[in-house]
């Protein structure tokens, strides 16, 4: 049982960081539906670099670099070119899915490095995730930078006449967001399950995307949601640990996805939004053309 909880928290860590990164971008008004693609890039490049150099550090740095680069590209399409952000995100997802399948294939198999040591039985990244949540909350609510990020996400034209550089703020958010997505992907492939196989993420990025809606754009709710989903995910992988022989393991695998839909529906109801307010950033997904 302890083993199960530890694995659940490890899975939650990845959801936490991936969803938090998406939250960061979305608070600045940039929607990236290609989280899965950026994570695939981070996971694959991180895996390749770590295996080649034998250094975890370099692996994670490479993952964050490629994630940041993809974030920057998404920013270029969405901010500078002002293209449809959903289309851009789809492009990034399919690019990630297509290209990593090809470039990662020769690396199929286990990582073959000593496992990253744990702290109190937990992955060290769990604590990194907690720290990132607190930092993100602090930056967003207590600092001038956070106010700027929230403002460009709510109403970029207001931000602009208040003297804020909308494009720069959004680029900063979306690039940082990409780096964290790459990082989350690398945690999967270097720590959580250090084996490379074709299209191994199987929807983690999309669940992270749904988690952001679930969190109502608040880091603490996001943490709670991530732990819930991490547990569900782990349960779907090892149902025998908790409920032996109840359902086929394949059916268990569908549960986190089905619950995601349920949660999303609950959140879109009038009942919910009238009680908890529509926390969605007003300008989310809308391109902005500077007037100046």
């Amino acid at each position, binding site marked *: 049982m302890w083993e199960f909880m530890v694995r659940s928290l490890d899975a939650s860590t990845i959801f936490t960081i991936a969803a938090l990164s998406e939250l960061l971008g979305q608070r600045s008004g940039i929607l990236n539906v290609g989280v899965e693609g950026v994570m695939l890039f981070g996971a694959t490049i991180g895996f390749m670099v770590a295996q080649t150099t034998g250094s975890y550090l370099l692996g994670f740095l490479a993952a964050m670099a490629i994630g940041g680069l993809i974030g920057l590209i998404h920013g270029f399409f969405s901010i500078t070119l002002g293209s449809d952000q959903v289309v851009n995100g789809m492009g990034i997802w399919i690019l990630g899915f297509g290209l990593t399948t090809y470039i990662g294939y020769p690396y199929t198999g286990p990582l073959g490095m000593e496992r990253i040591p744990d702290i109190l039985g937990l992955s060290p990244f769990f604590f990194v995730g907690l720290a990132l949540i607190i930092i993100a909350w602090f930056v967003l609510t207590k600092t001038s930078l956070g*106010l700027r990020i929230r*403002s460009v996400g709510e109403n970029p034209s207001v931000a602009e*006449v208040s003297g804020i550089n909308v494009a720069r703020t959004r680029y900063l958010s979306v690039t940082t967001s990409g780096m964290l997505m790459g990082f989350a992907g690398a945690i999967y492939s270097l720590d959580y399950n250090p084996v490379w196989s074709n299209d191994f993420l199987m929807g983690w990025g999309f669940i992270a995307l749904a988690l952001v809606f679930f969190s109502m754009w608040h880091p603490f709710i996001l943490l709670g949601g991530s732990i819930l989903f991490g547990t569900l995910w782990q349960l779907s992988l090892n149902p025998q640990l908790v409920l032996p022989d109840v359902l086929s393991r394949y059916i268990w695998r569908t549960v986190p996805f089905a619950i995601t839909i349920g949660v999303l529906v609950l959140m879109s109801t009038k009942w919910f939004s009238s009680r908890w307010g529509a926390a969605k950033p*007003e300008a989310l997904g809308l391109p902005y053309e500077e007037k100046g």
Partner: protein
Amino acid sequence: MLPESIKHGDTVLEARGITKRFPGVLANDQIDFEIKAGEIHAILGENGAGKTTLMNILFGLHQPDEGELYLYGKKVNFKSPLDAIGLGIGMVHQNRKLIPAHTVIENIILGHPRAGAILNLKRAGREITELCDKYGFKIDLKAKVWQLSEGEKQVVEILKALYRGAKILILDEPTSALAPPEIKRLLDSIRIMTVDELAIVPFITHKLPIVFEISERVTVLRRGRVSARLATTETTQKGLAREMVGRDVIFRMEQMTVEKGKSILHAENLVAFNDKGVLALKDVSFSVQEGEIFGIAGVSGNGQQVLAEVLAGLRKPQGGKVILDGADITHSSTLDFWMKGIGYIPSERIDVGSIGEFSLAENFTMNYYFDDRFSRGGIVDYKEIRRLTEQMISEYDVAAPGPDTTAKSLSGGNLQKLILARVLSRKPRLLIANLPTQGLDIGATEFVQKKIMEAKKEKAGILLISEDLDEVLSLSDRVAPMYEGEFMGIIPGGEARRELVGAMMAGLKPKVEQL
């Protein structure tokens, strides 16, 4: 840059020969004026006279192609609003530049250089409270902006400018969304500011009485040029209007008595919520007869929008009934409302009333795809609709190359004419016109009002919702001032005095004998 002391009457801002071109358009042509400390100097002009461009130049959103701006005698060159703000120019926008999800204080300190890397809300709060006390503003700094009334939002904008150290305050249509008592409070605050030697520059389109009440000097713009510089003591409303339009203007539509027929619409005890789940319509009942214009006056946000949507079938009421020609249609679909003869002109021309990427003919299809004359067996007769569109474009004098141009290429006035043409071409039994002339220039306003009168002559019942008191009073047979989701009374047009209706719009319910 700011001089040590400013004396009353010192020239603080001077524009010399400001000229601005846009592709195919000369928006500002050699504009000169001077703004003096401690003075209220109105800039007056119709839509399209170049006011917005001039305002954007003063605030650094646009750069002039020719001409110079001098601030305290020194030449300045604003590259962005930030430059203008830094030199003490503050702007209070008509379409509020505030973030509804943020608190008042967050809005005020947004982008402020002294906000601190880690926000120091305590210090800012103290300083803003001092400003409030000085100028007589009352506001809860921790409230979210979406919870505020229009007047309070304007206060937040003014505070934001003052907190940034504005010495010159540009006010864009400062009174357009305010109820009369709020206007009075605003004027009181502005007068205190002039004592502090601030220069106040209101930009005004329609409300000529306000110009006289508020300002000492007026610069009138017409077709991109300065057509007059006047002191308000030297002119009259008629005179100002002539300078603005270039001809004499009829201030009152000629009233027309049409024999009233039977009652078309009965609204019984309507109760409805708005999008935020707030009760916006509290027990409203009235009826509209054939050949009657029933006017609803009120400051925006008092439930008119929700009422219009309920009567157009776009929003289901929580209680009450909508009865059209004796039939209860409360629970019918929106499409049924159209088919049974209700025509709705929405206030949101661009987002609701039209589809920008569609051609004009396709926009016409919005009201004809279900019509047996233009759509048989599920197949739309686009040829016939195109022909109708062509005919209506010329009948309503819509300036457009033809029925195949996209709606987004039309100007505001032409778009409104198109919507009007589309809705009226169905010959509705009941026309609901929601802010039909808002933001239109005088020419287009006259045209729209004329067409509404024509519909009245043809025995349509008309529900006119307007924030422009003059419009409601001059067109309506009966007037219902609306406040916080209720009618404050229903007054026959002949007895509707400006002061009475204004007071009722602000929430005063007169005793029955006064009516």
